């Protein structure tokens, strides 16, 4: 159905737009979604950084 929308003040939106373009995001929405997803993910901390490292060590390239 309808996606919820969130309001931002104009100056923040302009900054977001610039950052999204600089960082290679296809739209400010994608950038905002990505940043928020990460922040939310940090809250539940389901995968710790240690686990990520452990996961990748089998590649051989890292120690």
């Amino acid at each position, binding site marked *: 159905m309808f996606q919820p929308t969130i309001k931002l003040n104009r100056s923040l939106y302009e900054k977001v737009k610039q950052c999204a373009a*600089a960082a290679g995001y296809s739209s400010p929405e994608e950038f905002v979604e990505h940043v928020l997803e990460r922040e939310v993910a*940090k809250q539940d901390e389901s995968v710790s950084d240690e686990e990520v*490292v452990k*996961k990748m*060590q*089998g*590649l*051989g390239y890292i*120690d």
Partner: protein
Amino acid sequence: MKWLALASLLLLATGCAHQTTQAAGRRLIVLGIDGMDPGFLESHWQALPNLNRLRQQGDFRRLATTVPPQSPVAWSTVATGLDPGGHGIFDFIHRDPVTRQPISSMAEATPPSHSLHIGPYLIPLTSGSVQAMRSGRTFWQILAERRIPATVIRIPANFPPAECEAESLAGMGTPDLTGTFGTFSFYTDDPAEKRSQVAGGHIAPIHLENGSATLQIEGPPNSLRKDQAQTAIDIRMHADPAAPVARFDLPDEQFVLRQGEWSDWQRADFRLIPGLKSVSGIFRIYLQQVHPHVRVYVSPVNIDPADPAMPISTPSGFSRTLTGKLGSFYTQGIAEETSAFRAGILSKDEFLAQSRKVLTDNLRMFHYELGRFSSGLLFYYFSSIDQNSHMLWGRYEEDLLDIYRQVDQAIGDAMRQPDTELMILSDHGFARFDRAVHLNTWLMKEGLLTLDDASNTGDTEGFAHVNWDKTQAYALGLNGIYLNLYGRESGGVVSLADKQDLLDQISAKLLEFRDPATGEHVVDKVYFAEKTYQGRNLKHAPDLIVGFRRGYRASWQTALGAVPAAAIDDNTQAWIGDHCMAADEVPGVLLSNRKFRATQPQMVDVPATILSEFGVPRAAGMLGQTVF
């Protein structure tokens, strides 16, 4: 008018039919040989009769590799015809721009969004999933849409496999059953072994009672339990009191091994809900020593191809069919046990023996595929030369040549196929890895990275002591430098306006960077992501890609964000060969039984050539040209 319309329709139909006939009869075999080095071939043509004959009868060129020359990056380009800026994979390791912590570049898992809580259990109501991070359509998806038969075995960075009707089996990037890229287990009662974790493995002490001990083999975390408790199975090991021999009892199997022997593949079920739900894994056991101390190596638990817990093939039953024909096989993306060799748990000869087992598995499947190949495309990938080069390059030439010889024989078998075009390519070459460059330390010495306390240098990973308010750039992964950019990195300090100046400044300094021990330049070339890549999918791109000179590579510590004291150290690991350098330093190879028109072929040309051979136009955005 009606007749005209009918005539044009007819013409169109004949055209299509012609294209299908042309495609239907064609037979193209593409062999992807990771890490095959042009220089090594040139100095050993006489020892590699099939490759030698192929270059004489057909052609041989250096194949320009991607920036950076890393396997997931280069093979993603081969798969999609896009440069890294298009497919979005820039390294084995990406970083989360917000947390600046490493993340895997190849796949991402999403847990189920809704679950039911019953006692200690968590029953998912929606399915979780694993997504490949690579963007773009693969050449075999495009062929499958045109009903051109294609089988693609083990191409890297294809986990989970791209959905299509072609037959494909996932390769590098496929995890073991525990979700890592390979974690072995080692069991010993030797009190001198004090370690419990090494990179890519864990070491468990065991206690023998009357010669018997329990080895607990860890499976995946129990996703159906709230506490995600690790699943495990117990194996009882019984050693003879004097002879170097032991019996192993598994839940449904029993076997005897002599010291120095490997078991066949063993299958085990890891229970999630007793009696209701379990996941199946396969592993091999190596009895390294019985007396005076027991030493037992257990391979990473591979996803069982007969009953895969995660998607590893298309169609999903393809891996089961292969198991029916061939028995169990390694499904883990990188199966050669370099980790246990590096940790000193397996000797060089033991590593080579294990590596031969991987190659034997792979050759058995290759011959099966070759035997049933009738028309269309067969793409087959070999990991052995790459993994062995990492451990043998420049020091154990004969051992490495032995691996090249076995692959040469497989190439000979492909060459015997009648009326078949053959293309052989590698994603990069090899060089010695003598000196490890601590890029974060170099950045610190250049005043671009600041620690909370200058004395806090060391091997602690994850930028633990970095003061981000005073840091302009940081390095992570094997070739990448990132700016601490305002609005992208959380708390980033470099403004957009200063970005280019700072990048120019870092680049200039890198090119001046000399090894204090030898006075030699460390860096050959520095690439700016925004200028190097045509694609704009740069979300995970480092701002600068460091092209090291031969002999130099980002240190182990750099890859995960540590800041040791010195800027360069000797590489003291058993991993002595590498390729994460400047792309020009480590080109791959391209061979065919036909002559090339292209004088300087590149990775992007490979999928363009494959599609062109079947008369299929390139998809939008694909960059290459046919090499013929």
